[in-house]
């Protein structure tokens, strides 16, 4: 476990923090967005913000696929599950996500056949085992998950399975970052790029961020030192007047991504003209749909969907949290009306959601953390 210790070494973290502080221009405030929910998790679990100078803040982005699914799509999925002779299959993360008419768990309790699966291949297996039923896979996820769905559709086609389809809700992080850059709400100085998404798409798709928006981006690993190293690399670029895509996680992320995965996705899916993201609204060319060639595996072509747009509950401020405008603890219902046990918003449902990460690690504002440490030192 030497390597792990090396990446966790608090002394190294403090040394890196000192280098970070030395790079900060006096009087300037830096705001970096970590796009990926896994990074958000590491930041709060290890209290990384406490290692950073006051002038550097990290804001979380929309990189949690469960969190960005709009309520109307959850209602559509439940409507599919309610069709006669349908078995709906879904990742466990989706089960508690509330739509306008409740969640998958609520629907299942009311009598629909909704089954949790680990892999889309498990959903395909359910289809093989139930030839008299139509089995739908609730396909969600960003670039990391999409190739698995595409490969499963290709497998179903190769085997000639006729009772299987997907309800495709796959979204792409790159257009979402662009939407955030175009939004007037937030001034950002750079991005900590997603790790596992980048194993699939590589680093090239981010090149527009420095080229068109003049912001640096560094793809990062998930260890605490990976994140601090990425912040250091971002500040170094700014200090040297550079603006590039850099790869801190090159031990896992190839610059060109996984070309087999990209080919599979492009064979089965194509861009949707537009798609709604919770909190970000409609973003053009930000999601995928099944190509005509694989129409037989597209639940949206098999069944008529309500397709109703459902507004988020008024009290819920997930939208602002997903855009990085609000910290979770600044939301009016955080930790009171909205908890992981009784979530109002999606950011509290998924373990990768910013609110759940904050809640689970008991982190509030830096001010509050300081107050707690002063109180405990007096005690």
């Amino acid at each position, binding site marked *: *476990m*030497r*390597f*792990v210790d090396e*990446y*966790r070494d608090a002394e190294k973290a403090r040394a890196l923090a000192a280098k970070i502080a030395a790079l900060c221009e006096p009087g300037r405030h830096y705001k970096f967005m970590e796009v990926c*929910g*896994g990074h958000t*998790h*590491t930041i709060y*679990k290890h209290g990384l913000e406490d290692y950073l100078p006051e002038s550097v803040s990290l804001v979380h982005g929309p990189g*949690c*696929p*469960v969190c960005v699914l709009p309520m109307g799509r959850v209602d559509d999925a439940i409507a599919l599950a309610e069709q006669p002779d349908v078995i709906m299959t879904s*990742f*466990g*993360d989706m089960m508690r996500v509330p739509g306008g008419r409740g969640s998958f768990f609520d629907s299942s309790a009311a009598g629909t056949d909704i089954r*949790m*699966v*680990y*892999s*889309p*291949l*498990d959903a395909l*297996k359910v289809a*093989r085992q139930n030839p008299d039923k139509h089995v739908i896979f609730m396909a*969600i*996820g960003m670039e*990391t*998950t999409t*190739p*698995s769905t595409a*490969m499963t559709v290709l497998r179903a086609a190769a085997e000639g399975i006729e009772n299987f389809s997907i309800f495709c809700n796959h979204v792409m992080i790159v257009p979402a970052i662009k939407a955030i850059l175009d939004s007037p709400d937030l001034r950002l100085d750079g991005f900590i790029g997603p790790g*596992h998404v980048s*194993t*699939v798409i590589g680093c090239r798709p981010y090149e527009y961020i420095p080229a068109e928006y003049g912001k640096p981006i560094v793809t990062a690993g*998930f*260890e605490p030192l990976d994140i601090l190293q990425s912040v250091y690399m971002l500040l170094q670029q700014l200090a040297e007047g550079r603006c590039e895509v850099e790869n801190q996680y090159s*031990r*896992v992320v*190839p610059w060109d991504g*996984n*070309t*087999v*995965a990209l080919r*599979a996705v492009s064979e089965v899916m194509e861009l949707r003209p537009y798609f709604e993201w919770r909190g970000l609204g409609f973003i053009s060319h930000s999601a995928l749909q099944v190509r005509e060639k694989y129409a037989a595996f597209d639940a949206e072509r098999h069944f008529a969907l309500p397709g109703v747009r459902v507004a988020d509950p008024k009290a819920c401020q997930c939208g602002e949290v997903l855009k990085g405008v609000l910290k979770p603890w600044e939301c009016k219902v955080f930790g009171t009306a909205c908890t992981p046990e009784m979530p109002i918003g999606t950011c509290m449902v998924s*373990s*990768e959601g910013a609110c759940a990460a904050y809640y*689970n690690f008991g982190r509030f504002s830096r001010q509050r953390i300081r107050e707690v440490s002063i109180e405990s030192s007096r005690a």
Partner: protein
Amino acid sequence: MCLGIPGEVIEILPDQPDLAMVEVSGVKRAINIGLLTDDPPIPGDWILIHVGFALSKIDEQEAKAAMDFLIGIGQAYDDEIAALLESRIDERQ
């Protein structure tokens, strides 16, 4: 579903397309390696598994670091491992 879980390839299953037997957290499961056809793994290689598919090859040290990260996550990791252990993508089972 967003978690990447490291596993060690034990055996490539010759009679089934794209499947390998992989040891994850001390348990053997069939994992699809169809996304790694450009650089296929062999027994002894470590891979990063995502919803039943190997997404990339990693070295053993990275695998240990990834596992340490996951164990630190707590409940979400327990749920993911429980789901993986329920998974039976191997068609013979």
